[in-house]
């Protein structure tokens, strides 16, 4: 890209994100949503578009869409309609898609995206419901088979304003959005299963000799992973700059184009389209009456809105003294963050819980390829473990050992952390008389160190540490270190 030197380049990116909603049934019929069923086994007259069949709205999909809209700070429409979007394609049984064009459910929101230590406000233009198409299968050469199991799956299309300025930002937004829909329990958003798909609109503002130029907008269709999203934007930005250097063409109405992503070659390719393909001939679907959204229903959903990942992350930093760098890892998974709060409610020390989550609990989760919540240890046990440590009954090392034992499984009801500590002999002694004996013995056996500890300012610190170590050794590691320190002080005559 040597020719691009001396140019200032700013990518301008808007995202269209399709999120499959995790309702039990499809958008307009009673067919179950099920990934991996035999082809065309999850279909009925409605989602096959058979003559005479009629769509009926799945209210849960509307609720999921509203919940997402609320989390994205959108205005929720009081009246919403469905439109038919006409185009011929074999995986679209009616040759029109039921979508929302003129009156979408959610409008004018925003998402505060933390990126590179600043918060970027990404405006949400709209979020609307529509039905997914089926899939063309090309398993046999020369034959296109069609699987309509996916046809009619509820999709939420979320459209941002062109507020993203880099591939990194776009990817970060996508990651946060996935986290958000997980949090709201509205979508699995599993990329491998195509439950979340991206279509970035990309162009580039080029500043050169004090003038600004905008390249024509390109929409890259159907990206199925964060990696592809990032790579496609990076590629497209470079390509557009190069193309501008060659032909100088700038954005104008009518010269927006669609490109596909070739994942293997890592490039975008123009999509062959006919002119009329752009005329979707939208009109209100006469089969589906306009839907009035009860404001009380929306208010109820607003009240029931869970604390969202970014707010929760901040609270975890404040309450659990977890570093801002580490908090999102806990807050990002709702079940894990809930577990943390529940363990604290069960009496666990928050700061110690924070440490446990970031140390051994997350290590075990990583090892097992699950989340901390997925480990199956109860909030009560996690809380008790942190309480034992706070009360000085165990030390940090012992806590780790007990945690391992808690994961051990075995028959019968799981032993409590305290029972495990007792069984493994990990409880620290808080018997002052006993500890005093150990201190006396250690002091008697180490006269030189006692002398240093009393009178040698240079060696005082090291000598006290040494004596403490001797006491712990005599106690077999069970003496509560705080009591040991106190009694050493006392016997040294302070």
């Amino acid at each position, binding site marked *: 890209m040597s020719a691009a030197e001396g140019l200032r380049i700013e990518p301008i990116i808007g995202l269209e994100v399709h999120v499959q909603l995790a309702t039990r049934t499809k958008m307009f019929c009673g067919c179950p949503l099920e990934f991996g069923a035999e082809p065309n086994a999850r279909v009925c007259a409605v989602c096959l578009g058979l*003559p005479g069949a009629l769509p009926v709205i799945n209210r849960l999909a509307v609720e999921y869409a509203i919940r997402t809209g609320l989390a994205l700070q959108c205005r929720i429409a009081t009246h919403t309609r469905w439109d038919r979007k006409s185009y011929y394609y074999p995986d679209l049984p009616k040759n029109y898609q039921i979508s929302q064009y003129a009156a979408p459910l959610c409008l004018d929101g925003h998402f505060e995206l933390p990126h590179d230590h600043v918060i970027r406000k990404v405006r949400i233009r709209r979020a609307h419901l529509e039905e997914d198409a089926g899939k063309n299968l090309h398993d046999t050469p020369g034959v296109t088979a069609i699987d309509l199991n996916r046809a009619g799956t509820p999709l939420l299309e979320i459209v941002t304003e062109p507020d993203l300025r880099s591939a990194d930002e776009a990817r970060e937004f996508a990651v946060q959005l996935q986290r958000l829909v997980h949090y709201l329990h509205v979508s699995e958003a599993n990329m491998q299963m195509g439950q979340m798909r991206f279509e970035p609109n990309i162009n580039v503002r080029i500043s050169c000799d004090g003038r600004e130029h905008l390249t024509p907008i390109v929409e890259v269709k159907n990206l199925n992973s964060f990696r592809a999203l990032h790579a496609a934007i990076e590629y497209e930005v470079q390509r557009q700059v190069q193309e501008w250097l060659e032909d100088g063409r700038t954005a104008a109405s009518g010269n927006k184009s669609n490109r596909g992503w070739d994942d293997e070659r890592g490039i975008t390719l123009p999509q062959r389209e006919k002119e009329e393909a752009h005329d979707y*001939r939208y009109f209100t679907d006469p089969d589906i009456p306009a839907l009035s959204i009860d404001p009380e229903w929306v208010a109820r959903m607003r009240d029931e809105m869970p604390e969202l990942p970014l707010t929760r992350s901040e609270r975890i930093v404040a309450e659990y003294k977890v570093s801002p760098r580490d908090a999102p890892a806990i807050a990002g998974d709702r079940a894990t963050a809930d577990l943390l709060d529940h363990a604290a409610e069960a009496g666990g020390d928050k700061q110690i819980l924070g440490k446990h989550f970031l140390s051994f609990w997350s290590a075990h989760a990583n090892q097992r390829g699950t989340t901390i919540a997925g480990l199956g240890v109860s909030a009560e046990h996690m809380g008790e473990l942190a309480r034992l440590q706070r009360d000085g009954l165990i030390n940090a090392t012992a806590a780790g050992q007990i945690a391992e034992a808690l994961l051990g499984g075995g028959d019968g009801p799981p032993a409590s952390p305290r029972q495990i500590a007792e069984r493994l002999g990990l409880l620290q002694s808080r018997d002052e008389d006993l500890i005093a004996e150990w201190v006396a013995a250690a002091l008697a056996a180490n006269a030189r160190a006692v002398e240093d500890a009393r009178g040698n300012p240079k060696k005082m610190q090291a000598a006290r540490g040494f004596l403490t170590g001797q006491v712990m050794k005599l106690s077999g590691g069970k003496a509560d270190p705080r009591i040991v320190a106190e009694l050493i002080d006392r016997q040294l005559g302070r």
Partner: protein
Amino acid sequence: MLDGIRQIADAVSSGRRSARDVCADHLSRIRQLNARYSAFLQVVDNDALAAADRVDDAVRRGQPPGPLAGVPLALKDNICTRIGRTTCGSRILERYVSPYDATVVERLTAAGAVIIGKTNLDEFAMGSSTENSGFHPTRNPWNTAHVPGGSSGGSAAAVAAALVPAALGSDTGGSVRQPAALCGVVGLKPTYGRVSRYGLVAYGSSLDQIGPLTRTVTDAAIVLGAIAGPDPRDATSLPAPVPDYAAALADAPLAERAAGLRIGVPRECLGDGLDAEVRRAFEEALAVYRRIGARVVDVSLPRTPYSIAAYYVLATAEASSNLARYDGVRDGHRAAGAQGLVDLYCRSRSEGFGAEVKRRIMLGTFALSAGYHDAFYDKARRARALIGRDFEQAWAHCDVLATPTAPTPAFRLGEKLSDPLAMYLADVFTVPANLAGLPAISVPCGFSTGGLPIGLQLTGPALGETLLLQAARLYERETDWHTRRPPV
């Protein structure tokens, strides 16, 4: 053979006559006469007899067999049935078998009716003469050189020729009422949403309604009572409970209705193009109303002259989308030897659809296209809303509106085939009720000098079926047009 629904149902329910016997009688009459009228596309003899046997079993076991016990019924072939084919009168669905029954079919069966066959229609219900059937035309039982009207021409002819006591049709712009008028039977289009559309193959979804064709107003009320009501599978069906329509036609409620009944006549509807004999029959019908004490008042529906234009934009726009699914990819006709996907679409549709369907798909596609959407589709929607308001204002002055059903008696086969616009004007009186979603009924009100029937149309306010049926019955009670049968 001229028994009405109530006589048949009473005889079957009481065990005086078996449903099988009734069914066999009608089947034999169909075998004897259908060739003359070509009213049926398909007669399902064995399935009908089996259904009749099930009704007889229920009677024997003492189970209530329903208000339509053993009544043979024919269905327009755009209503989905698991039994037999559902062709919509189109080559593109020539071999199509629906895997499910329409809601009205379930309800009819639950009421004890025996589905006896599927009747001819203009392809996808697009037409006013049944000449647009992809298979063959149907003939008017009163004069076989004439059309039966359309698009439910097969159902109207079957009822007029007494091949069945009742049939269902569908009415998008007059397709139940106009053939009812041209064949001398009763045809009712209910309020939009009164009868579930689930399983009615869509033409213009915001206009389509299923309705009964019968020989009497009472029979129409009985059939409507059996098929009306909310349906969770049709989001446009109305939640209102279903009154006992037939009970409202007893003497006492009728007498109550007659007192002070106001019949509104929209004078702008009675201008050019109205056949003189139709006008005369209509004026005589008004005189009958005056005679029984009703008041006939002039009202104004100033925007109804725009109905035909608005209708042909909206219905065709919706049709262009509803018919997009017939593409040769899944069920339906698939062209042989297509080169690639677009060629498959083009050839399958070119071969499968007839000329009128193609014309309407093109009209509708055009009306929705970028650049024309505002001027045609959106403008037609505004006109529709205004026409609805005209009716709203009219209800301040009258209880029901009266017009002729069709501007002329049945025309000759082929007479208007080459002039689609003239054909479209056959719907001039019927289309406004579809645009406004209102119930309307056609009842026989006389004959032309040539011996062809003439129909009187009454239109009522939304969900005013009871009132409408009462007003129609009050007229029918005073006349004997409905008792006349075509010569065999």
